[in-house]
């Protein structure tokens, strides 16, 4: 028995080694460097019974973010932890709660499961290129915005037939299932053929393979892909935004104290430049200038 097992076992182990060794050597934007903002953790005191007090006492927070958006929230092969602007905002919030960056648990949320993850308590807050809109406000609450993006198009660099959303008739346009961009395309550009995948990485993969004509989402996300060394020179961002996407922090509905706290935290980060620093270290790496921070909307 021992002898008979030796060969298959050897094969299995070899196979496992081959598998782990053959990943792409891709270095995402902002990846590879220890270039994080590392906000100063403060000793925090909160009123008993508030969400802030609970989180501060637990000394840990679960934040939902995207794992596949270069520059905003993405996991590179070298590290287990996501990196990007959303992640940095999460760390700023955590620091205000007295939680160190390493005690923040980032959980992957895709566009379609963000509300349910907040509602069922899988995460405490969601910072995941999360557009503030009224439909979502019926289920959850938003703090922010902390950034205002606009929907744009990513096309192959040699494709000059698409120069704006009005050129989309008969074109295959990909966006993530359940995201704002796919609904926008479906409603306002009915002549375009919508293509849906769970993640933008899959959309970009299909664009690279020539199976679709355009990927559509927020300009800042597309800029991340266009400047990703993995796709160097293959894509261009059209540069005609056709929507306004204020990114907010999603939290449980009705937790007004917590929402006020998050809004205060964001405003402080706008003022003390930690917001700008977070931007420059992540999205700024793709050559984008940090804009002026937006106005927080305390509805």
């Amino acid at each position, binding site marked *: 028995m021992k002898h008979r097992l030796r060969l298959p076992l050897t094969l299995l182990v070899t196979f496992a080694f081959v598998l782990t060794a053959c990943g792409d050597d891709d270095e995402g934007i902002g990846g590879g460097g220890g270039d994080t903002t590392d906000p100063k953790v403060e000793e925090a005191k909160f009123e008993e019974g508030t969400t802030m007090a609970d989180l501060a006492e637990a000394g840990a927070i679960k934040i939902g973010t995207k794992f596949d958006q270069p520059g905003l929230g993405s996991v590179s092969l070298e590290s287990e932890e996501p990196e990007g602007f959303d992640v940095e905002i999460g760390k700023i919030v955590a620091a205000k709660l007295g939680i160190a960056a390493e005690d923040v648990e980032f959980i992957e949320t895709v566009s379609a499961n963000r*509300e349910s993850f907040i509602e069922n308590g899988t995460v405490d807050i969601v910072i995941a290129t999360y557009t503030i809109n009224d439909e979502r406000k019926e289920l959850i609450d938003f703090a922010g915005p902390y950034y205002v993006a606009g929907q744009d198009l990513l096309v192959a660099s040699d494709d000059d037939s698409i120069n704006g959303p009005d050129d989309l008739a008969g074109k295959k346009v*990909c966006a993530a299932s359940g995201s704002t961009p796919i609904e926008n395309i479906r409603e306002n550009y009915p002549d375009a053929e919508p*293509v849906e*995948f769970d993640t933008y990485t*899959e959309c970009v993969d299909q664009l690279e393979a*020539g199976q679709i004509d355009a990927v559509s989402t927020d300009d800042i996300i597309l800029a991340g892909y266009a400047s990703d060394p993995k796709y160097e020179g293959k894509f261009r961002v059209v540069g005609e935004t056709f929507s306004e996407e204020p990114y907010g922090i999603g939290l449980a509905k009705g937790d007004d104290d917590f929402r006020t706290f998050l809004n205060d935290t964001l405003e402080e980060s706008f003022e003390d430049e930690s917001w700008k620093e977070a931007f420059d270290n992540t999205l700024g790496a793709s050559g984008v200038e940090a804009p002026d921070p937006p106005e927080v909307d305390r509805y």
Partner: protein
Amino acid sequence: MDFVWEQRDVILRGFGTTVLLAVSSGLLAFIFGTLLAVMRVGPVPPLRWAGSAYVTVVRNTPLTLVFVFCTFGLPRMEVRLAFVTFAIIALTVYTSAFVCEAVRSGINSVEAGEIEAARAVGLPFHQILSLVVLPQAFRAVIPPLGSVYNALVKNTSVAVAFSVAEASSIFRRLANDDASATWSLLLTTAVGYMALAAVVFAGARILERGTAIVR
């Protein structure tokens, strides 16, 4: 439930796509699966090996991987088709292996004496197959094939992740549209799948009755 009623057209169109996936890949899989089964019991060794290799590889690969290969792999080889077509290919490739094994079990249920008798009267291989073996095999194979097709109906839902607007993808989109209707949508979609499965089941029963022989 109001929302479900409002969106009935969209939901029905989703199930239409599900039926399209199931019927077209079901028919194709029946043809390829039977061919594979014939290869596996036939007298030509290389065909036999090819048949077994196909069944072993495909049957032991998760359907999602077959889908990934079709939807993401084929375009890389300059094969550019509609996403629905990729889904039909994936489902056909996958289901063929199971149809093959069901049909092969049916072939094995035909008594050796019948085949010997057919050989003794001088029938060539293709006639032994088409006149003696397959007609009896298909009769024996209806219940297991029913299970294979029942699984196929539900397997079509894997296409949700590969840009095909079938029933579960519609469910997801609508539930995302109006999260308060999630439960009624889920219920409607589940009932839809059960109805489709019931059609497969009823079809199998009718075929089974129609072809039964009173011994």
